[in-house]
């Protein structure tokens, strides 16, 4: 499989880079480069040290390159598949003999080909600036490396969004992409000892003071240039490249699995792959967690919450819709509509979440020993309640996904938000989470309360907390029963008779 002979890449190249358009783009960029170069030169003529204008020119060109490829190229990827679906050209690609990976790679590198060309046109100005400014070429090269690798990963994300986007949702997808890119461009991002995760980091690499040496103590991990992986300081640029490559791998897997499929039966990953992704992301979260800023209780609470969010997302990816279930029922018969199926994906999520949650508990225990305010048993109870919370919400959404309403998942999410908002206000008004003795009862309805359980409260009200855990089981059973009903409904097809069962000859 040669990327350079990929037909989809060539189609994009032919569509977007006609000689006229290339000449116009190159001409405009050359004119702008000359104008800016001259302006920087004149501006720095008297006051700045020799060659400073070159550095300014390089930085300006690099900024535009990052912007053009990360934002412009990202938008091109965002519409690469959704527009083809809208124009009814995508089916023709799906019936060709291009393998799913070939089609994916053709779009990944083909859709933003104009943005790549803009980057190329800006290279003379950037290189001239770097040379005049006597910039460290190793650093320049590293910045370009980080920029390109990270951008391709972001393009992969945009392409996957494009695949999954409903018709006429390009604007919403664009806003979402921009918002995410913006969020990930904020340095020192929260509880993780990770710096910014967007291609814009490469710009700050150029001005990094002594970026090649570990700064003197105290090191603030998750700052602009250094990350901490299980306490080991690693340059952020390197981390960004490794994480981008692995993330791109996961994105390509999802894209290649689905790009040629019938959209009604998209399935991002197999359950096993989803579990692998959740485990990998947890490893990243735990590895880069800035544990020194937190006590054991807060650290456990935060990591359980992050794990919960991950598995909630995973639950959404493995959810079955009516079409997929019909197919399963047709293939597997009553096995696909039995009680085990009625608990899907709760059983799967419970297993995965509990397994990884226990590993997190182990890491906390090792890192913090036996600190005040937290003990392993309380952590276990919190983990159990969080597991059931996850299972019941995802089971509810799975049931909603089998109902015949428009946008069932969105409706399900709205119902969940309404439920938790109303329940929070109601229980607050009743004063049910004011005292430690009443909180377990409130936790039956608002399991989030169980996640903040402290060691002393657990010791004082063990029976009540056990009841709060046990009460989740009937709730799960009711939701499974509802799903079972839907499975039965899907099993009973409209009656029809075989009218034609003959050969045409």
């Amino acid at each position: 499989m040669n990327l350079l002979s990929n037909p989809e890449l060539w189609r994009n190249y032919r569509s977007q880079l006609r000689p006229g358009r290339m000449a116009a783009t190159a001409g405009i960029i050359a004119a702008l480069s000359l104008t800016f170069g001259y302006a920087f030169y004149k501006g720095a003529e008297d006051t700045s040290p020799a060659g400073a204008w070159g550095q300014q020119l390089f930085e300006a060109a690099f900024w535009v390159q990052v912007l053009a490829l990360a934002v412009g190229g990202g938008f091109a990827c965002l519409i690469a598949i959704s527009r083809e679906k809208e124009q009814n050209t995508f089916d023709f690609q799906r019936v060709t003999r291009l393998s799913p990976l070939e089609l994916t790679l053709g779009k990944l590198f083909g859709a933003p080909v104009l943005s790549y060309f803009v980057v190329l046109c800006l290279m003379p100005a950037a290189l001239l600036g770097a040379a005049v400014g006597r910039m460290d070429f190793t650093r320049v090269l590293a910045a370009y490396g980080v920029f390109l690798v990270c951008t391709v990963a972001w393009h992969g994300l945009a392409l996957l969004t494009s695949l999954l986007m409903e018709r006429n949702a390009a604007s919403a997808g664009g806003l979402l992409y921009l918002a995410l890119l913006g969020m990930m461009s904020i340095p020192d991002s929260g509880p993780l000892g990770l710096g910014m995760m967007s291609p814009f980091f490469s710009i700050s690499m150029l001005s990094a003071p002594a970026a090649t040496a570990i700064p003197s103590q105290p090191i603030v991990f998750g700052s602009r240039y250094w990350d901490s992986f299980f306490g080991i300081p690693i340059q952020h640029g390197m981390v960004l490249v490794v994480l981008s490559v692995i993330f791109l791998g996961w994105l390509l897997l999802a894209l290649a699995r689905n790009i040629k499929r019938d959209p009604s039966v998209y399935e991002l990953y197999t359950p096993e792959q989803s579990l692998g992704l959740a485990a990998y992301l947890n490893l990243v979260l735990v590895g880069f967690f800035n544990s020194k800023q937190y006590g054991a209780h807060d650290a456990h609470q935060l990591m359980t919450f992050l794990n919960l969010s991950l598995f909630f997302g995973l639950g959404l990816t493995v959810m079955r819709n009516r079409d997929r279930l019909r197919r399963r029922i047709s293939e597997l018969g009553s096995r696909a509509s039995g009680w085990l199926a009625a608990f899907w994906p709760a059983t799967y999520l419970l297993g995965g979440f509990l397994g990884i949650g226990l590993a997190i508990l182990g890491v906390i225990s090792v890192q913090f020993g036996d600190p005040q305010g937290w003990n392993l048993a309380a952590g276990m109870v919190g983990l159990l309640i969080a597991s059931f919370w996850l299972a019941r919400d995802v089971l509810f959404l799975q049931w909603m996904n089998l109902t015949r309403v428009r946008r069932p998942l969105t409706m399900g999410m709205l119902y969940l938000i309404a439920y938790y908002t109303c329940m929070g206000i109601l229980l607050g008004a009743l004063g049910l989470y004011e005292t430690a003795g009443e909180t377990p009862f409130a936790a039956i309805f608002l399991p989030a309360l169980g996640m903040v359980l402290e060691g002393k409260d657990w010791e004082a009200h063990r029976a009540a907390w056990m009841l709060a855990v046990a009460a989740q089981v009937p709730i799960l059973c009711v939701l499974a029963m509802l799903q079972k009903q839907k499975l039965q409904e899907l099993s009973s097809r409209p009656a029809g008779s075989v009218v034609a069962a003959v050969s045409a000859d």
Partner: protein
Amino acid sequence: MIHIENLTKEYDLSGKRGQVLAADRLTFDIPSGEIFGLVGPNGAGKTTTLKMLCGLLMPTGGRVTVNGIDVERQPEEAQKHIGYLADFFSLYDDLKSWEYLDYFGHAYKMDAAAIPARVNEAIGVMGLESKRDAFIGGLSRGMKQRLGIARAILHDPPLLVLDEPASGLDPKARHELKLLIKSLHRTGTTIFITSHVLSDLEEICTSIGILEKGKLVRLGALDQILRGEGPSAGPAARRVRIKIAAAGFALTDWLAAQPGVTGVVAEPASAAGGPSAPVTGALFHLAGSEAGLAELVRALITAGAPVCGVEEITESLEQLFFRISSGEVM
């Protein structure tokens, strides 16, 4: 060539209006070299069936094989054998005609050295020589349709699946399309086609299937179907008119008593005479083969009827389709 087995597709109707079977356990084979026409009213499930055949839609149940290759399990291998044209489609407006075909030549993994010649050949077959270097955005609807067909036949597939290929074509282009389909048929290509222009289908198809609410209500060779024969044609499908030389023989009563005969309608000697006019003919449906008809006529003569004419009435596809659509027959 095509083997379809228990092919089923269920859809949900929007809101809570229930579910619909767009394909209801369809089972049939289409041998190589056929031009098979699938007809049916809008919403009968024609496009759904075609899309499942091409591997674009996953069936709820059942399977499709093309040249023995399971379309669902080995889609890329199966698609090597299929050329597909959708009913509503767009092309890449910012490509030139030859670039469009060149792209699909590579996408179908044709021998790279053979692609330019094959592109020119397909352009020639579809009469697009003057538009070879034109941007697709500037082509007329009919030209785009031709280019779409050129794409579908580019990799010389043994099976061509065409969904409403004549839509948007002017009468001349439609005629040329028919000629093209016939010429492809002569080269051994199997063609699976849907169209609302039934007269066109009647002209080119060798076999036909009539789809109604996801069920095949007729299937077989075109001439058999039109004569009311065929394995799935149902009872009393052969329409026959018999005339006798003089009134006096109770023709309608005699016919109604015969096995396999239904729907007997008396035909008076002259329309002016009204219902009381003497009966000298009858129109009826007869289940069975030509031999059965011969047997019936022999028995009628033996019974003393002065038979002076026997005519088997062949319907046009359009007439048959309307009768089926109106629920007159199923």
